[in-house]
């Protein structure tokens, strides 16, 4: 696993350790959601849409010349968007193989894994799956 991915997960865990209650955590997540640059409206297509029953996530991936992947993402719900921001922060600029190997343990560590449950259907679990799918696809492309 790329050590930067792990370092970023640890960073997030430390950040959340500062919060003594749920509301503070969520205030921070909402803030992150508000800060995340919006995806260009042009990119909010059905193709990039990951549909949960509750909220929607759009995910756009691109590869730089150095073989690393870049992500921009958005959601119609601000809390989902804040969580999306955290996931993007961990994965952005990383190599496909590192992304594929990552165990996203920070979500559980900061007590937010319920948002990742497939039954939660906010699009977040689907988004992470989609990031891994992209990584796999790029990896296969590189090998060709």
């Amino acid at each position, binding site marked *: 696993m790329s050590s930067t991915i792990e370092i970023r997960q640890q960073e997030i865990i430390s950040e959340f350790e500062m919060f003594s209650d*749920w*509301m503070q955590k*969520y*205030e921070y997540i*909402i803030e992150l959601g508000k800060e995340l640059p919006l995806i260009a409206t042009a990119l909010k297509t059905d193709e990039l849409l990951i549909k949960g*029953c*509750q*909220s929607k996530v759009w995910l756009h991936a691109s590869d730089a010349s150095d073989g690393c992947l870049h992500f921009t993402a958005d959601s*119609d*719900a*601000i*809390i*989902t968007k804040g969580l999306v921001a955290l996931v993007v922060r961990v994965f952005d600029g990383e190599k496909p193989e590192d992304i594929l190997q990552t165990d996203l343990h920070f979500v559980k560590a900061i007590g937010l894994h319920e948002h990742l449950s497939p039954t939660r259907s*906010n699009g977040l679990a689907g988004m992470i799956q989609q990031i891994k799918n992209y990584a796999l696809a790029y990896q296969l492309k590189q090998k060709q």
Partner: protein
Amino acid sequence: MDIHSIAEPFDLQKLRRQIPLMSSHANGHPLVYFDNAATTQKPLELLESLNNYYQFHNANIHRGAHYLANLATEQFEDSRVAMAKWLNASEAAEIIFTSGTTESINLVAFSWGQQYLKPGDEIVLSTTEHHSNIVPWQMAAERSGAAIRVIPVDDNGIWDLTNLQTLITAKTKMVAVQHVSNALGTIQPIEQVIAAARAAGAHVLIDGAQAIGHFRVDVQALDCDFYAFSAHKMYGPTGLGVLYGKRSLLDAMPPYKGGGEMIKTVTFEKTTYNELPHKFEAGTPDIAGVIALHASLNFMQQTGIEAISTQEEVLRKKMQTTLQSIDGVELFGDVDNKVPIFSFVLDGIHPYDIGTLLDKQGVAVRTGHHCTEPLWSRLKVPGTVRASLALYNTEQEIDLFANALRKALTMLR
């Protein structure tokens, strides 16, 4: 003696002690359970009945020639009789036990549809229907070549009955509509729709899932042909539903599922079917559930259905005022004619965000489309926050909810 009104004087605190979940906590807060339209919480009577059944009476029913089997059969059939009385059905055989509202409606759409639907016939639904009262009819329409027509709503989600005469016509074979909207709480003007259906010679199914727990339902007074609901929305167990049907129609319909209990004789050449209600109850039924539903009925009877309606009206009014006092709240549906179910949005804020932050403060509501997508696409709203109250909720809980909502709004705005 009226079965609905042998109630004890209403005592909210005593009642709440009968509902164990009312003293639960969620996310470190006392739970405020405002998701009753999804499922109601259960009285101790229900648990006692389940425990009693499984510990002392469990046996497969009917055809049994032994003590336990007879006991279980009697208790099972007693529950059917009690339900028939509760709904004022003409006879117990008109009560069919199913696995839920959804199955009750599927049963009718399949069996009634097979008997009565031809190409060119029409089925009338409404824009506010739950998916469970849409999809089975779409499937029946596809099988039979019938068409679906829809009662429209105004911008508030209220049925628009101005053109009812052109909607329900001689072509109409079935009018299948809800008694109460699960998304809005609106008590629908079904009397008017049933009269129009009768005049046109159409049959009528009422989806009573959201009515049965809130007020008195009299199937003969309504003069509907079918009435469908779920036990879990009337303080009863999950996995169980009821279909009331008029004998004449149930008798004319082919069976739905095949198997044990629903037959008279079986040979590989020819099988003949059993009488009502068994014809529609193939296989071992939910014996424990049916018996436990009787306990839930007793709970409602002792509380008194009129007392339930009165108490819920108090909650409804307070909730209405509270929501209207909060800046930016937009409410949908009829404001007066309703049970305490409230669907709202807050300008520009996603329901999921509100739901999540209420939840973290111990308040359980539901967000999303509430299985009524056609309604929300008509109203051009992708989803709402729905707070739905029941009998055992309190005015203090409404205050807690309001505080939690205000806090969420401060965070989100």
